[in-house]
């Protein structure tokens, strides 16, 4: 849950606060009000999807700070 690395940057050269690290993830399955999503590198994460409406497996989402901001066309 928490990141105790003392590199303290989320990735070598990105800043989560600015929002440019919003990433595209693919919905794998639904988990209550959340969705399990997969990144292109194969990693998975539980993402809150209330702000983008109903989602289905295969949907591509723009995600920032574990919250989906937009469903991609």
């Amino acid at each position, binding site marked *: *849950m*928490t*990141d*105790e*690395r*003392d*590199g*303290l*940057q*989320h990735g070598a*050269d*990105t*800043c*989560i*606060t*600015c*929002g*440019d*690290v*919003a990433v*595209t993830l693919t919905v794998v399955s639904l988990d209550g009000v959340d969705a399990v999503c997969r990144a*292109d590198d194969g990693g998975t994460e539980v993402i*809150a999807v*209330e*702000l*983008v*409406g109903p989602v289905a497996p295969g949907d591509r989402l*723009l995600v*920032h*700070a*574990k*919250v989906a*901001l*937009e469903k*991609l*066309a």
Partner: protein
Amino acid sequence: MRFVDEYRDPELARSLARRVAERVDPQRHYKLMEVCGGHTHAIYRYGVQDYLPESIELVHGPGCPVCVIPMGRIDDATVIAEDHPEMILTCFGDLMRVPGGRGSFLDARARGADIRVVYSPLDALRLAVEHPERHVMFYAIGFETTAPSTALTLQRAKAERVNNFSVFCNHVTIIPAIKAILDSPDLRLDAFIGPGHVSTVIGNRPYEWIARNEGLPIVVAGFEPLDVLEAVAMIVDQLADGRAEVENQYARVVRDEGNPVALRAIADTMTLRPWFEWRGLGSINHSALQLSERYAEFDAELRFDVPGVRVADPKACQCGEVLKGVLKPWECKVFGTACTPETPIGTCMVSSEGACAAYYNFGKAARQRVELKVKA
């Protein structure tokens, strides 16, 4: 990789560069401000400037929220964390090295405060649920991209009645910052590259006054190198045609209306502050968010005594001028010498999206070229 590879194609980049070169007026100097720190980072990481004619100057704006946080707000949270042994202060990792008057969060952690890095405010909320004997405070920071995650977390905290959780809110809004930049007498701009992910939330319409009242083009852009290059090409087209419009280069993500659900979540949980101090820009009216009355029980500034100390920036630091685009990072007196990413004096050197850090990490070649040009 979809949505990535097609926006980093060198041949497409050269094609866009040719389009820009064909349309620029060789007698004219163009000053384009990229509002968002993410664009600054992309420009120097990928060498976008090298594809553009010398007459196009990219000016870095104030859109890095870590960079505009005043030192006093770091100190306020540090005091809360150190004065309450039950406290777990949580924040994004970027914030840990931001210097305050009493040192950084890293320094406070070394002194014994329990300060932890999280990826999401939802992680902070889960921490509160898992540790009912502790109080978890989330240091919320960011523009409208980040505010929805805080808003959603607050809604969940209220629904789940998590009463050992609070938010120290420092969310800021982009439009007042752009207005402050335009009011600055030191800077004359020709156009803006608009922030892509902020616009995912607020949409394109809030920028219409820039085109209508200021007569300046603004093109909302994504963060891949071809996104930025295409945005520059669209701006040059507008200027060559005598147009000033809001255009959306990032249409694969950004809708004109933004995300209304996210905007409603923000409106439910937060309200505009009368004023907020921005590092480098000073106090700007209605430029930041605080928790709404409905969520007062989660407002750290109401639950705890906040010193509200105002700390002057170090005299040697010229972050203010850099944030307004008046100075280039390397023109700061301490850039790369006393102030480096390892030992930052100013916040612009802390965040990787800060203009100084972007130059330091990726822009040395460009800086040398410009220095040579000046000498010639």
